[in-house]
């Protein structure tokens, strides 16, 4: 696990080294414009011509100090930018991930239970459509239809009225996650405002990502329902509901859990596009901007951050896996 992180850091560093020193200076310089004649002295000052290993360890040392350099796109230190953008993304993840998993598992189960019946075909069409549509197209369509035509569910994260409340000194931003802060402040207006803006991006992500889970759940549920232990349960006199919920589903979930770790990778990709389309100032949008403006510090930080997220997600997946499947529980 640690090894994975070291690997990620090495790759990130290697990519960074490909960028000319002159531009890497930007990582270290805060704020003010750099004049051309200064560059050389700055390169020397920050040791950007030192041998690679020396630079790598210096970089790592800084990371442990919490210094990730300066982000041009956030016009602030990277870590400050992170504090600003991350809660927005986290909020979207918080609402879409459970929905993706629940909708996927639910539709998959329905499809398997009613195999080859109309409802099964319907869910499968839903899956194929969701699976094959490009994220940006669906996002734009949703936006065009709901906001453009009907005038509901606007882009952004919050309305102007909401912003007013946000900067009111009596309103405390505990977590910077809008809905949670709203609840903590007991401000329902704020809460619904945030939810209102979250709706479309959440639908977008759920439509796209639950398709994968649904398809997998359907096939593994069909597989489970054909197993011998289902026959045993039937011979016992168990009713359909018990057979589906107790005997089949848990077995069917095992492969789904493995894949949902991977699904998360897709979700991150979808996040960049979704945030860009719906103008949500989150990590995805930040990364997209950083990439187009060669904000090296921000890109490096985010790649590293995603690496950490993946390691953590995999750990969680492994834990859930062991909880569901007693065969791999350590004794």
């Amino acid at each position, binding site marked *: 696990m640690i090894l994975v992180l070291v690997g990620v850091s090495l790759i990130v560093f290697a990519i960074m080294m490909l960028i000319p020193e002159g531009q890497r200076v930007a990582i270290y310089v805060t704020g003010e414009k750099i004049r051309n004649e200064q560059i050389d002295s700055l390169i020397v000052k920050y040791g950007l011509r030192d041998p690679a290993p020396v630079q790598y360890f210096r970089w790592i040392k800084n990371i442990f100090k919490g210094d990730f350099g300066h982000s041009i796109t956030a016009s602030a230190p990277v870590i400050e930018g992170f504090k600003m953008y991350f809660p927005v993304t986290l909020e979207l993840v918080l609402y879409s991930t459970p929905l993706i998993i629940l909708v996927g598992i639910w539709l998959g189960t329905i499809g398997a239970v009613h195999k080859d019946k109309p409802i099964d075909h319907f869910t499968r069409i839903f899956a194929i459509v969701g699976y094959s549509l490009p994220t940006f197209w669906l996002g734009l369509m949703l936006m065009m239809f709901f906001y453009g035509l009907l005038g509901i569910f606007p882009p952004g994260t919050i309305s102007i009225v909401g912003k007013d409340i946000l900067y009111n000194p009596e309103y405390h931003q505990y977590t910077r996650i809008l809905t949670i802060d709203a609840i903590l402040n007991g401000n329902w207006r704020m809460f619904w405002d945030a939810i209102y803006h979250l709706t479309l991006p959440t639908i977008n992500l759920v439509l796209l990502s639950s398709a994968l889970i649904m398809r997998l759940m359907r096939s593994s549920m069909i597989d489970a329902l054909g197993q*011998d232990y289902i*026959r045993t349960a*039937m*011979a016992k006199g*168990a*009713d359909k509901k018990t057979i589906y919920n107790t005997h089949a589903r848990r077995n069917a979930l095992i492969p789904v859990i493995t894949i949902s770790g991977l699904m998360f990778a897709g979700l991150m990709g979808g996040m960049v596009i979704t945030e860009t389309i719906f103008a949500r100032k989150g990590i995805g949008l930040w990364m997209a901007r950083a990439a187009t403006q060669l904000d090296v510090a921000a890109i490096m930080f985010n790649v590293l951050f995603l690496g950490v997220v993946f390691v953590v997600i995999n750990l969680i997946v492994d834990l859930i896996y062991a909880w*569901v499947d*007693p065969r791999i529980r350590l004794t």
Partner: protein
Amino acid sequence: MEKLVEAEELRTNFYTFEGVVKALNGVSLVVNNGETYGLVGESGCGKSVSVRSMMRIVQAPGKIEEGKVVLFFNEKDRNKGIDILKRSEAYMQSIRGNDISMIFQEAGTALNPVLSIGFQVGESFLLHRRGEMIKLAVKTLDKKIDENSNSLFRMWRKFHKRLLQNETDDLERYKTEIVKIDSDLYRTEGKTDSKSLEKHKRLLVNRERLNKQGLKVRLQLKTPIIRRYVRRINAAVREKVIELLTDLGVPNPGNIVDRYPHELSGGMQQRIVISIALACNPTLLIADEPTSNLDVTIQAQILDLIRQLKKTQISSVLFITHDLGVVAEICDRVTVMYAGDTCETASVKDLFKEPMHPYTKGLLKSVPKGEIGEKLQTIPGTVPNLITPPSGCRFHPRCPDVMEICKSQKPEMLMMKDGHSVACHLYRKK
């Protein structure tokens, strides 16, 4: 002898991608009260499908097309019986595991890998003996209420007792409703006038819709915290499971209940499967090759166990096997099957002494007699593909005595002498 279960002209097909597999071609068999009945044949001849059809647990893509499975379980329906293929699924659920149970060939795959042994065995009790389990839970609870003087605990326990009582009342109500519908169904069954048919149909729908649990009980089972009283039932079930496992000679049952199937040996897994089947003292036990995948010594132990259970607990056993040695050892009567057809039915003694059907004869010749250097005979040819089965007698491509008529006409079951019948054109009265 009294009939216990009778299957008549069962036809079951499997709708696979390659085509329709005609697995059962009109299978008829009778299991009498008190006997151990054997069903023999090569693998793939439809033994398992027959019994699964009889229990209505044929899994997709299989479908029972026609036939009858008549039960003569209760004294009062001795003469008419109940055709369970016509009854509702809910009725079948109340019979499976309760009156008819089944044990399986591969215990390893027959047990659910993600559920504990205690749960899998205990489920039988919860499905068919919930009332008794609740009574046991109430008993333990009563003792605790007496002992404890702390008033808060006392209130909590009294509350639980109340909830358990709710469930008992609910079960009673359900039981009376069931009894009423079932007896109405029994009366209308088999009648052909349109009024009775109409009524029968309506009753079947009602039986299916009849809710096991009333709203109050469903609520108390779903609400968090309140539903914790279910643990008391589960504790009672656990006691019963341990008791059952001890009876079946499972060593260290208190430890086994918390284990998972993969942690047990093959023989132990089979014992667990047997205990699931026996939990509710069934009238008929169907054993589908329960010893085929076990070591010889374990095999003998399991056979012993079944034989002993036959003496003490279960009235009849339907034993499926491909091993004629096992048939000779434990069965009273036996039916030989070939490619979805029943060939011959006889008492074990008659079958071994004077086999009639050419297939039975071939089968008996291929059994080693234990002589050194003996040459075993085999039946030439291979088992037919059941998507395109041979016409007429399905055995005709391999039969040494084949006649012209065999290719076009399916032989009927002929009663040769008392209790010995055979389906072969050779024995047709000219």
